[in-house]
Structures are given as structure tokens and as C-alpha cells.
């Protein structure tokens, strides 16, 4: 390293810094930076072309206590208990396989995770229990499940 330095001709002292020079450098850099920033935003569209995150499941009267309905396309099971309705996502929290809803338990076919009837992990690699989803009532009385919104495990919704 010292050898390299030795070889170099001593740089001349920079005596005067032109204002124009600095200003130019910084505005040019910031304009290109801004353009870069803008194009980094480009790959994420404002809306994704997938099916809606919310879907309607009918009215509360369609779910008498004890019913269980699986919405295959959306991978959600809706159960009606005495203390209200709940929607449980059927997507395994390990790597996103779709779990099989069986009596009082959920089994994941990919890596063997087993969940109990409330979606807690009983056995296997999944790090988290199955997601419970929010059910809300629309002004016209219809119920709507929001796949994007999870609620704490065990939350049940009571509708009239």
C-alpha cells in the first residue's frame, strides 16, 4: 500500500471550490436519485389482479348452531358455535399448503403439521396456529369474511 502511494504523483491542492460545481453535482445526483426512487416503486402495482380479499357468505340465519361450511375457492372454513360464528383460514402457517379440514382437527398434507379443532399446532413444523379471520356484517344484513384481516385465536362473532 505504501508502495502504491509512493508511485503516485502528489495531488495538487484543491484550492477553490466553485459553487456552481457543487450545486450542479448535488442537483444532478438528486434528480437521478428521484428517478431511481420512482422506478423502484414501479414494480409494485397499486392493485393486484387477484380475486377480492373479502367474500360474502350469506346471512346469519344461514348458519344455525353446529353448521360448518368450507369455502374451497377461498380456503376458509366457517363454523357456527353456540357463542357465535368463526372463520378459520385453511392455509397452513408453515409454507402455505392447504390443510385438510377433518373432524375436530386440521391436517396439513405437505409436512405433516397437525392442528387441533381451534387451529393450534399439535404436532409438526408450523410456527403459528391457523389464522382466524374477521367476519363482519354489511348494512343489508349479509355477512362478509375478510381474508386479509386476522383476529386473535378464539374470537367469535355474534350476529342477529
Amino acid at each position, binding site marked *: 500500500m505504501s508502495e502504491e502511494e509512493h508511485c*503516485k*504523483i502528489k*495531488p495538487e491542492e*484543491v484550492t477553490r471550490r466553485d459553487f456552481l460545481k457543487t450545486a450542479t453535482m448535488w442537483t*444532478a445526483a438528486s434528480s437521478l436519485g428521484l428517478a431511481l426512487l420512482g*422506478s423502484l416503486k*414501479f*414494480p409494485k*402495482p397499486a392493485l393486484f389482479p387477484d380475486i377480492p380479499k373479502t367474500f360474502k357468505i350469506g346471512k346469519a340465519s344461514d348458519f344455525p348452531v353446529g353448521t360448518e361450511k368450507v369455502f374451497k375457492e377461498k380456503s376458509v372454513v366457517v363454523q357456527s358455535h353456540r357463542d357465535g360464528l368463526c372463520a378459520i383460514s385453511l392455509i397452513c402457517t408453515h409454507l402455505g399448503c392447504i390443510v385438510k379440514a377433518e373432524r375436530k382437527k386440521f391436517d396439513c398434507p405437505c409436512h405433516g403439521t397437525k392442528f387441533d379443532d381451534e387451529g393450534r399446532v399439535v404436532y409438526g413444523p408450523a410456527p403459528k396456529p391457523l389464522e382466524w379471520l374477521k367476519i363482519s356484517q354489511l348494512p343489508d344484513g349479509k355477512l362478509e369474511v375478510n381474508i386479509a384481516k386476522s383476529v386473535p385465536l378464539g374470537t367469535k362473532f355474534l350476529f342477529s
Partner: protein
Amino acid sequence: MSLTEFFKNILRLPKTLKESIIRHGKPTSDRTKSEVVMSNIFLHIHSTRIQRYTLKKTFTMGLGVMAAASFFILIVTGILLMIYYKPSVDLAYDSIKDIQFIVPGGRFVRNMHRWATNVMIVTVFLHMARVFYTAAYKRTRSFNWLIGMALFCITLALSFTGYLLPWDQLAYWAVTICANIAGSARELTDLLGITRYFDVGGLIKTIILGSEEIGQDALIRFYWLHCAVLPLLMIVILSVHVWRVRKDGGLARPDEIKPEELAGIEVDEKAEEVFNNAPQKTYGLMCLVKGKTPLVNKGPEDTIPSWPILFIAEFSIFMFILAICCVLAYFIDAPLRELANAAVPENPAKAPWYFLGLQELVSYSALMGGVGIPTIALLGLALIPYLDREEQSVGRWFDNPTGIKVTINSVLYSSIVTIGVLAFTVKFGWLRNWFPDISQLAIILINPGTVLVAFFVLWSMICMVKYDSTRLSAIALFTCFLISFAILTYFATYHRGPNWDFFWLKSQWPIH
């Protein structure tokens, strides 16, 4: 102690990393300035020192760099657009709409892409004219002129293939027209009655479109050309183009340069030394470079270090073009019409503006206008450096006062002839209107397009005889074609309406 050394190394990491990347000091001395250029693969497309004449603003006007800058913008915006564009007949149009509406900055990027295309085409045209008028195709640069022609063709092909991709009415019908122009060799084979056995026009057309009609196959082919083949070719050939400029000793320049021509350009005090024609010691390597050999320990004649001035100049041109594209992209949206509909033609269906001059000629005869005259023009352009081998000074616009005079005369002549022929055709029609049964061969041979070419060739011959100079004759011919092309393009853009009829203004177009 290796352990302490190790921790020291960690502390020194930023410094050592920087030094390993930039292996020279601050560019303050001649040597370090050269090192900046030499040790960087991207900057070393330029030599370490450049002729002061190169920086003369009125000489190149930065046109070549402008074209390259717009090409760079096109690559960046094009790569961005590729994220969303779907080359399928069913999805293409909707994907463009999505880019317009829900992609962050999508509308702006698409507009930029569109406008950079137009800027590139204009600057490529002007760059070619600059090289021609400054005689920069002479001496060792003949082949580079040919490479430039190839780049010119690729530029047009790129913008043409990109024109179809939105899959709207404008695109569909513009490309239909161009595809039919490509297939117009059929006119000749039809005439000879051999189309059944030897259908060149049909072959070319089907190869371009991948089918008889414009459809999914054409779209995917155009996409393939536009996004892969042509850009790759462009980059490779552009590299050769720039590399040859460098190997030819930088830009062309006059043999004798008056000091006042270089007014305002920086001077390197150490480069005052003039070449000795019999140097005692020279750099042997320099034999590879054409031109005179420089002395050891003495700065070459009238040069300055290219760092930083040349790079600042080029960067400024890039920023200038970027700014222009931004302004245009903000105010004017790229066109997007209705979804392509093969059943309902646009009327008038116009090609992209840079092909409208040709479309005007095509309206007289598809074969001559679409194939014949462009071939003649391109061939003529390509052969200029080989046919005009006059020894002369290069690097000055129009060479000398006589050149200026010839150019002005040619501009006047070709304007009058072109406007005259157009006016005549609009007013009186052409052969088919007078003799309805005339053979197509007569139309192919004698139509306003060929008449124009004949007029220009005649003029160029006159100049050749009068001034006894191939260069001046070439100037005359080139000017005639350039001006005529500009006038035809203007005419077809603004004065041709439905059914390719003549109209003074768009508001005069018929209701239907």
C-alpha cells in the same frame, strides 16, 4: 499480531474497498486524469486526451450523444414496461390500460418511452445529416458510415416493432400498412405473372407476420424483435460504432484549424508543443492508431485531458434529453385508441410519422414507394463514402462557401420540385386517372416518386458537371432527398385525410 491486524483491517475496510475499486488518486494531475479514463471500462470508450475541436459546440451539436442518451432512456423505461406488458392479443391492450391506470408511475414511464423514441429518431436523422455535411465519412471512416446506416435501420425497425405492441386500432392499422408495403414486391411478380411460383412479397410478409394476417403470431414476433433481437443487435453494433470512432482517432476534424474556431474551449498549457515530423522517440504502440505520432515527454498537439470536460459535456447532453422527455411525458400522453379491430379499418390509416413520407410514395406505387425508392435511397446513402473519394478537408459544415451555396440551391430546388410534383398530382391526378387501362408496369416506372428521384439525380449530375466535384454532387443529392423526405412527411401528416385525399386542414375532413 495477526489478531490486531485483523481488527485493524476491519476498521480500514471502507478505505481499502474504495482503493481497490478506484485505483488512482484525485483527478488533479494530467496523469491521474488519464487514469480515471483508462482504468474504467465505461469511460474508456473515450481516449484519455481529446482534440479541442471535438468540444466545439457548433460542430457536432451533440447529436450522436443525444441519440445514445435517448436509447439509454428507452432501455431503462422499456425494461420497466416489460414487467407489466403481456404479449397476447387478449391481454396486451388491457395490460397497457393497467399500466396507464394502476401502475405507480406507469403512465409517466410509458409516455417517456414514447417520447424518447421520437427524440431518438429525430436525433439519429440529424446526426446522419451532420456526419454527411461535415464530410466525416471520409478517409478511414467509410465503414463506420455503413455501420451508422445499419444503426439507422435498426432504430426504425425498433420503433416500428414497438408500434404494434399496444394492440390498439392505431397500431394495428399502421402495422397492416407497413406489412403490405413489405409485401409489395408482389406487384412486380404479379405483373410478370410469376407470383404463383415465386412470391417474394408474400414470403417476406408472412415471415414478418408469422401468418397471412396480423394476429397473435405477428404480435409475439414483434415482441420478440422489439425486446430481444433488435436491442441486442443495437447494443453490439453501437459498441462497434463508438469503438471505431475511438480507433479512428476521435471525431473527424479539419487539417488546419484557425485559433478563432476554438474560442472558448479550454486550453492545456502543456500541449502547446507542435508535432515534429521526425520525432526521435515515439510510442511504438501508437502505430496502431492512424495519424501522426506524438513525441515522448511532450503533450500532443492541441489536446486536453478528456476528464472531466468531455464527460461533463456528455452528461449535460444526457440530462438535457432526459429533461426534454420528462416535460413531454408530463404534458402529452402517448396515444392509445380503441382495441384493435380487424373488421373496421381506420380511415385514414396512417403509419408512424417517420414512415409517412414513404406512405405518400406508396400511395402512388406500393412497389416503388415501399421497396424501390427506399432501397435506392439506402443504397445510395451507403455507397456515398465509396463513390465520393475526393481528398478534402473534413470536419467543417458544408466544407466551404461553395458547399453552402450548393446546399442552399439544392434546398430551394428540391422544395420547388417536391411541392410542384405534389401540387400537380393533387390537382391533375396521375397516369391512371388519364388512361384507366394503363399497364401497372408504366405506373411502377413512372410515378410521382420516381419522377422526384429522376429530378434529383438530374440535379446532382448537373452539379457534378458544373463544379467538377463528386462531393458537391453528393451534397446536392443528399440535400434533395432530405428536404423532399421532410416535405413529404409533413404533407402526409397534415394534408392527407380519409381515403388519402388532400385537405388543407383537419377540420375540412368529411363527416364520414
